[in-house]
Structure formats: structure tokens, C-alpha cells
């Protein structure tokens, strides 16, 4: 690392071909030796891998950090997918990196070896709070995008149940309720992720959709026109979502594409309560939401060339049903019957290698300001304080 100009408290330096502004106290903790010559203590460098394609990651890379390109992050996760605290850290570090860990590697390996002629395999990551399920899902989503899968990605389905923007009775189906603005946001997310791929695959609509007397989507139109129409007409956005999902299932069944469904917090789809109040002041059960029904139809086993990856998180359940992190308890009977048979993949806290790597990364990025962070005692203290839990570790390090 080359240390360049000194400007007051800040020093500009080049690290990994990036120009960084680091606080003077972090860059090479200088200590004066007896001959009054400043000696720089070496700062630990994070264990990184230059391989940016997740399909080339192997178990040798476990514990290493790999960096996502800014364009990829914007394209895939511009409308959600990476949790906000993590995004804030990525902004602070001027890079979006994540650690390669076993659960994501196992899932990627299973996806590569899946038989696509069978009904879609379902891989569900489960684990306690803050172990890294969502970040593992980010890794898997990146792999799926690189591998040419059409992504149907739902970052936070529980938001549609709890903190929705607007719910109105459905125009087309009297039994259902639409999310107008939330569907538009999801369609924008879908468009952002899949524009290039759908263009190259040349997927087209297979049936005629009549929206109003004057507006209709013809047969044979590119699939993205449905998304564009939904984005422009919020009233029909939820129906557009349903239509896109139906078309994708059909295309996949006809071997024209492979579709990956990624849902972070899949147990939220099976919760019995929502916050939307009807006129008679009762709360609407979420299985009457149009978009819920649309995504639940993707979980059925009547299509192929697909894969379903999700996380089962207790924070996506209602407060009374959060006593355990195990899948059967969180999914309830309805969710279990919808997903069974699925492959539950456990995600656990950091082990020693990963803990060391995480501390090294924060030291490398200059996030840990305390001079004792990198010492043996400091590392042990950090590990003990956070109990090897990734989220707790991140939160502790905010103030160190």
C-alpha cells in the first residue's frame, strides 16, 4: 500500500488499485523505536479472492471476501436485496464485498447439479438471527444471475403484509386485493434484473391480455412489455405480476428458459395476518393478496427448469410465532405442505477462520479504529462480545 500525500488528518493511499482516503491514525500505526525512527506496524490485509463469478468459487475460498462490481450491484440489487445496514457499510468501504461461506457454496453446488427436468428443487436457508442467511442469498442470487437464470426475486415479502404502500380491492377479481405501488416497485426490480436476459432469450407473451377497452397486450409481444405496462399503470400492476409469473412458468416448462425464484423470508407468505383492514374492521388474511397468490403459484410443482431458493427467518413471522428458528415451526402446516419436499440448509455463526477473516476485513478497510483490535487479546474480545454472530459483530464494530 503506497502512502501518499498527507493532508491534515487524512492520508490518501492506494490499496488494491483504489484511491482511498484514510484517517491518519489508522494507516500504519506508527510507533517510535528507541532510535526515534517511525516504524510501521503491518496492518492485516483481508483475505480476498479476485474471482468475481460465484460459480467459480470453491471450498478453498471459504473465508475469503469477494467483491461485487458496482454495475452488478445496481442491476441486481438496486431495488432491494442487500439489507440496509450492510449497504451503508458498503458505501463506507467504497465496495460491495461479501464473504464466501459454506451454506452459499453448498446451495450453488446443488443448483449446478440439479436435474432441471424434475419439478423445481427448493433450497431453504434457515438459522438464528443474524447468522448470514440474507447475505448468503445475495451470493446465490449473484450466481444465478451470472449463470443465465431469469430471476424472480422478492427481497422482503413481509413488507407487503406489514408495511405496504397501498392495497386496493382488485379490479379483475372481486375476491382479491392488489398492491398498487408495491407491485410497480417489484416490476421495476424485475425489469432491472432481467432486461438483458429477456432480450437475449426473446421470450414472448403467449396469450392476449385485455386491461381496458383501449389497452391490451397482444400475443407474441416481448415479455418485458408486460412489466413496462404494469410500471406505467399501477392499477394493473398486480395483474401484470401474475401474468409475468404465469408466462415464465410456461416458458420454463417449454424449455425456453430457466427460472430462479428467490424469496428472502418465504415463511412470510404463509402467515395468517396482515395489517390491511377491511370495511368491517377485520384484518385481511394475506392469502387474498393478488401478488401473494402469484408467488405461491410459483411454489407448486407443476413446472420444470426452475429452482426455488429462500430463507426461513423468524423475524418475518408475526411476533407470537418466533420462539424457534427451525423450519417446520416457522412455516406452519400450510407452508410445510406448500414447500415439502425441500432441502433445508443450515446457516450458523462464524467459525474461527471466518471470524479472523471478518476482523481482518474490517481492519483492512479501516473500520476498526481501536489500536488493539488486531491484537490477539482484541480479537478474542471481539469474538466473545459478538459470540461469533455476524450481525452482532457488525453492530459492535460500528462504535469501535
Amino acid at each position, binding site marked *: 500500500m503506497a502512502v501518499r500525500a498527507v493532508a491534515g488528518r487524512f492520508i490518501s493511499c492506494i490499496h488494491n488499485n483504489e484511491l482511498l482516503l484514510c484517517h491518519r491514525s489508522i494507516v500504519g500505526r506508527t510507533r517510535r523505536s528507541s532510535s526515534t525512527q517511525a516504524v510501521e506496524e503491518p496492518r492485516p490485509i483481508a483475505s480476498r479472492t479476485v474471482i468475481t463469478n460465484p460459480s467459480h468459487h470453491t471450498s478453498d475460498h471459504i473465508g475469503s471476501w469477494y467483491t461485487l462490481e458496482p454495475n452488478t450491484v445496481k442491476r441486481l440489487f438496486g431495488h432491494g436485496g442487500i439489507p440496509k445496514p450492510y449497504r451503508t457499510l458498503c458505501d463506507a468501504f467504497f465496495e460491495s464485498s461479501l464473504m464466501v461461506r459454506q451454506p452459499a457454496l453448498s446451495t450453488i453446488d*446443488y443448483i449446478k*447439479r*440439479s*436435474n432441471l*427436468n*424434475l*419439478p423445481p*428443487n427448493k433450497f431453504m436457508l*434457515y438459522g438464528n438471527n443474524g447468522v448470514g442467511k440474507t447475505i448468503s442469498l445475495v451470493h446465490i442470487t449473484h450466481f444465478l444471475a451470472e449463470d443465465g437464470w431469469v430471476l424472480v426475486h422478492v427481497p422482503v415479502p413481509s413488507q407487503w403484509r406489514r408495511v405496504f404502500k397501498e392495497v386496493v380491492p382488485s379490479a379483475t377479481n372481486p375476491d382479491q386485493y392488489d398492491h398498487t405501488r408495491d407491485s410497480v416497485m417489484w416490476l421495476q426490480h424485475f425489469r432491472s434484473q432481467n432486461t438483458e436476459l429477456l432480450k437475449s432469450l426473446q421470450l414472448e407473451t403467449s396469450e392476449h391480455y385485455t386491461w381496458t377497452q383501449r389497452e391490451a397486450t397482444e400475443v407474441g409481444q416481448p415479455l418485458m412489455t408486460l412489466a413496462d405496462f404494469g410500471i406505467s399503470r399501477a392499477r394493473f400492476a398486480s395483474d401484470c405480476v401474475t401474468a409475468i409469473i404465469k408466462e415464465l412458468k410456461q416458458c420454463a416448462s417449454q424449455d425456453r428458459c430457466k427460472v430462479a425464484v428467490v424469496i428472502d423470508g418465504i415463511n412470510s407468505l404463509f402467515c395468517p395476518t396482515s395489517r390491511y383492514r377491511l370495511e368491517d374492521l377485520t384484518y385481511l388474511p394475506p392469502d387474498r393478496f393478488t401478488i401473494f397468490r402469484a408467488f405461491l403459484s410459483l411454489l407448486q*410443482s407443476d413446472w420444470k427448469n426452475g429452482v426455488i431458493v429462500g430463507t426461513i427467518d423468524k423475524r418475518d413471522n408475526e411476533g407470537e410465532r418466533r420462539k*424457534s428458528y*427451525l*423450519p*417446520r*415451526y416457522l412455516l406452519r402446516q400450510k407452508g*410445510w*405442505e406448500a414447500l*415439502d*419436499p*425441500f*432441502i*433445508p*440448509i*443450515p446457516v450458523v455463526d462464524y467459525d474461527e477462520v471466518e471470524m479472523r477473516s471478518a476482523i481482518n476485513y474490517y481492519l483492512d478497510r479501516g473500520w476498526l479504529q481501536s489500536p488493539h483490535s488486531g491484537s490477539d487479546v482484541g480479537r478474542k474480545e471481539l469474538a466473545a462480545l459478538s459470540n461469533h454472530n455476524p450481525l452482532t459483530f457488525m453492530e459492535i464494530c460500528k462504535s469501535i
Partner: protein
Amino acid sequence: MSKIMLRQVYRGVQGFRLHTAASLASEINPAEEEFRTLELKTVRQEKRTMRDRKKTPILPPRYKRQKLDQNWGNVWPTARTFHPATVPFPVRQGYPATGQPTPDKWGNAELMKIPNFLHLTPPVIKQQCEVLKKFCTPWPVGLETPAKQDKHFPATVSTSSYLHSSPSLRDDRARIVTMKVSLKSLELDDHGRDKLLRLVKDHHDPKTDTLTLVADRCPLSTQNRDYCTYLLTVLYTEAMKTEPWEHEKNVADYERYVWEGSRSEAAARALFNARDDSPSEDVLTEYAKVVTELHNEGEDDSSVSRYRESVLKLVGLT
């Protein structure tokens, strides 16, 4: 000489007080030796000795005279308060004071307060049993082992009787009768067992598989015992019956998860049949076993990992 006596002497002798010394000195006549000397202060010649009390000899404690092969039953024939000198072994009892060892047996109120069973040592018990044997009938043939006993006498009836040394002998608690039956002995089929368990609920202990009936509603224990018998009869007959409405039992009412006929089976079979590399049926049976265990035994990390292994085999991803 006491003060009273001195006062009397002074009163009796006139002028004595003033001329005591002079009269005494002048009247001494060595020739007359028969003159009685006035002794004001009588000195007792001999000290009155105390009566000799008989000193009882402190004998050594009794246990030192006991032989090693003595008959202990003769030393301690009945229940009695602990007596340290008779008990031949050292025993300590009680909370020690600071820096002191545990109090020994000598003058130990704790040891004396508690019941001891020194009257019931095994040789004494054996002896007593030998004597009692002539009043007993022989143990029935065919009931040697507990297994045989349970087989022929599966029900146990317990009552408690209470003795009072008070004007009345009665105790209300003596009417309570407890009957314990092992469900294995009832030989019910699945339906009967399920129905019986729903009827009795908490009275059944799953660990020991026994049904416990407690009756205290009647004033006499014989009546309560008859009531227990009646209850058991009724429960058994009701369990054996099948009511016409019982066919309405559906999946939500099942007491255990049954994989056969469930949606899990349908999904698994669909997946199994869709596979073109003809996997063995073991995959399905293992999957059924694992899912049933997950539901019936409870979910934990190990059962979820077994489920994962079986699903990986089912989808062909081992």
C-alpha cells in the same frame, strides 16, 4: 460467739462492759485453777465433718463390655431413643460450630431427636421373618417374577389408613382409593387406545403407560373402590365401542402425524415418479420415516438434518 449471744452476756453482767478488762485482770488467781475461764470466743475443737456421700463409681460405657459377636437384637430389641453408651460405633450428627468438628454422639440432641432403626438390623429382621413365617401361607406358584405378577394382576389398588391416639380414630383421608392399571394389559386396538386416551387425558402417564384413577367421592373406601372398578369398566367398554359419528374424524384430529395419505406423500411420490433414473423404493420409505419422526418426535437440528439427507436422496442430489 454470735452477736446475739454477746448482747445477752453484756446485759446479764452488770458493769461488765466498763470494767471488763480490769475485772478480768484482777480476778485471775493462779491458785484457784478450778475457776472457770470465760471464753468469749469458743473455738470448736473439732470441725463438723460432712456426711460421707456414697460416691457412685462412673462405670465405663456399656459398649466396651459388649462382645464383638454379641446378639444385637438383645441389646436393642425395640425402637428406643438413641443412647450413645450402648451404641458401639462412633457416629456424628449436626452442624459443626466454627472451627469445630461435627458434634459426636455424646449428649447429641440431634441424634436423640431423630428416629433410628437400630432395632431393625437385617439379622433381626431375618429372625423376625423366620418367626412370622409360620403365620404365612406360601407364595403362590406361578407368580415368582414381577412380569408374571403384572400379567395376572395388572391392576393395583392402594389405600392409606391413619391411626390417631386421640378421642376419635376416624380420618377422612382413609376413604381415598387409587387404582393403577397398565394399558398394555387392557389389550386395546389402535382405535380403542386412542379413544381411551382421549377420555382419560391427564390420568394417563405416557412414560409408564399406566392409567391412574383416584376416587374419593364416597364416604367409605369400599364404596370408592367399587367406584374405581365401575369407572374402569365404563372406560374400557366405551373405548371398545365405535360410535356412528366417529367416521367424521379428519386429519386435523389425528393424534399423531400419519404420512400415508398426506400431501407430503403425494408430493414425494410425484417427484419420485418424475425421476427417470429409477431410484429404489428405500428412498421413499426413508423419507416417510424421517418426515413422520420430524412431526411426531418434535423438530430439532438433528431431525432437520436427517430430513435434508433424505430429500437430497429423493431429488437425486446425494
